[in-house]
């Protein structure tokens, strides 16, 4: 038991060092711009269909629930605003973070794991390339850059899904829905929660890269790195979210309203 605990503590320390090294190396040349661009495409662009479809469905379902609640108070006019605030402040960022943990966490864990066990990482090193910068830093940078954008996509397709669900019932026009959706949304409702996903991106990228880059044990090890990446990235996104929400309340007292 004690040895299990100390091994978990040791792993956490290793991950923290790994994350620190990513931050440090991201400020040192060479910048590997071409590789970052490629990863943004791989990680970001290719996640778009997933995020857009999920956003649409989540928005539609949330709208139905919001309608059911607000109808009781005769406050149907508030439906668009209720949906927008719930979506922008919490649901959009968190659902995007979790979907991203699944798709991208598994992908990075498996890809780097396979490169490790097939000696492709050693091959990079043998060709005088800093494999950590080339593979890890670039992927984490791409995750950080891409998550707020994907969150925005989730938010807007969510509003669209909400509008469709609403107009089917009440026939509300899009122009009116759009105006009402934004009527109560402040800067603090949108920008801080969206930007906090940069931290989700850092967490997901770091965990998956750590597990992939340090894979041992052949093909089975690759599968394990991939699965663990999803599990640990998802749970850390959910846990860190608690701290981040609290931090936003602290930094932007208006956000609690």
């Amino acid at each position, binding site marked *: 038991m004690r040895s299990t605990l100390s091994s978990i503590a040791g792993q956490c320390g290793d991950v923290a060092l790994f994350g620190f090294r990513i931050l440090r190396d991201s400020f040192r040349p060479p910048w590997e711009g071409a590789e970052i661009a490629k990863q943004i495409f791989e990680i970001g662009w290719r996640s778009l269909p997933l995020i857009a479809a999920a956003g649409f469905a989540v928005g539609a379902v949330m709208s139905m629930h919001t309608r059911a609640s607000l109808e009781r108070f005769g406050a149907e006019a508030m439906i668009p605003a209720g949906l927008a605030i719930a979506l922008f402040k919490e649901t959009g960022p968190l659902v995007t973070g979790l979907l991203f943990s699944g798709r991208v966490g598994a992908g990075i864990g498996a890809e780097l794991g396979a490169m490790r066990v*097939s*000696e492709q990482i050693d*091959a990079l*090193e*043998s*060709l*005088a390339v800093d494999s950590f910068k080339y593979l890890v830093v670039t992927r984490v940078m791409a995750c950080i850059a891409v998550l707020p954008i994907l969150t925005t996509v989730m938010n807007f397709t969510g509003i669209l899904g909400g509008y469709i669900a609403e107009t089917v019932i009440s026939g509300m026009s899009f122009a009116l829905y759009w105006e009402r959706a934004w009527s109560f949304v402040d800067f603090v409702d949108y920008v801080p929660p969206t930007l906090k996903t940069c931290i989700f991106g850092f967490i997901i990228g770091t965990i998956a890269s750590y597990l992939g880059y340090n894979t041992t044990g052949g093909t089975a090890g690759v599968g394990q790195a991939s699965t663990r990446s999803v599990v640990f990235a998802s749970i850390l996104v959910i846990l860190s979210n608690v701290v981040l929400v609290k931090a936003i309340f602290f930094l932007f007292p208006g956000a609690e309203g």
Partner: protein
Amino acid sequence: MADAVIRFENVYKSFGAHKVLENVSFEVPRGSALCILGRSGTGKSVTIKQMIGLIKPDSGHIYVEGRDVTAMNAAELSRVRRRIGFLFQYSALFDSISVGENVAFPLRRHTNLEEDEIRDVVEKKLARVGLRGIYDKMPSQISGGMQKRVGLARALALDPPILLADEPSSGLDPITSQEIDELLLDLKHTEHTTMVVVTHNIPSARRIGDEIAVLEGGRILDRGSPADLEQSEHAIVREFMTLEGGI
């Protein structure tokens, strides 16, 4: 030993309780070829990986062109690696890019060649290992033997003065295998490339090696010219040398 390009000095290496190398010392003079012979799992791959710092010895020193690889920082190590071509035992091609881009990779990283010049060099290197018209194939679309040769082409892309090759002809048919031997000999004669070649293939070790080192039980059991080793005091070394095929 004034001009030893590679020198091992009392190198020890274990993985956990498993002792792989115990007090290994040897040197490779400039322009010569050393063949490392030994059974599977005796530490041949571990030995040559240490020469470019992919694995660190537990103790001892490894000098490349007079400078201690075991004490180098990342920038120094990177400079040494640019002077060494390394062929991995299982090729280790980048599987997400084409065969041609694998060979182009070091050229793109470390030279200022234009696109058409890179293409040119790549085609030449591929031709040199007997491959043509496969620039755009993916590594998974070619045979293991072809992957091996692409790996060799990639290792030679920057015309390194030192070549380390881990079983360059294993998995190749006898004819291709002989062609690779010819290529290595040609490199040695025309470009004076210093080489360390790990091999299972005794006839090929005889052809390529100025010296052969037999690794057994974590030590260099014997080392010398092929003729020397036929007269070795160790029965097992004499036996190795009489084998026609591989170990």
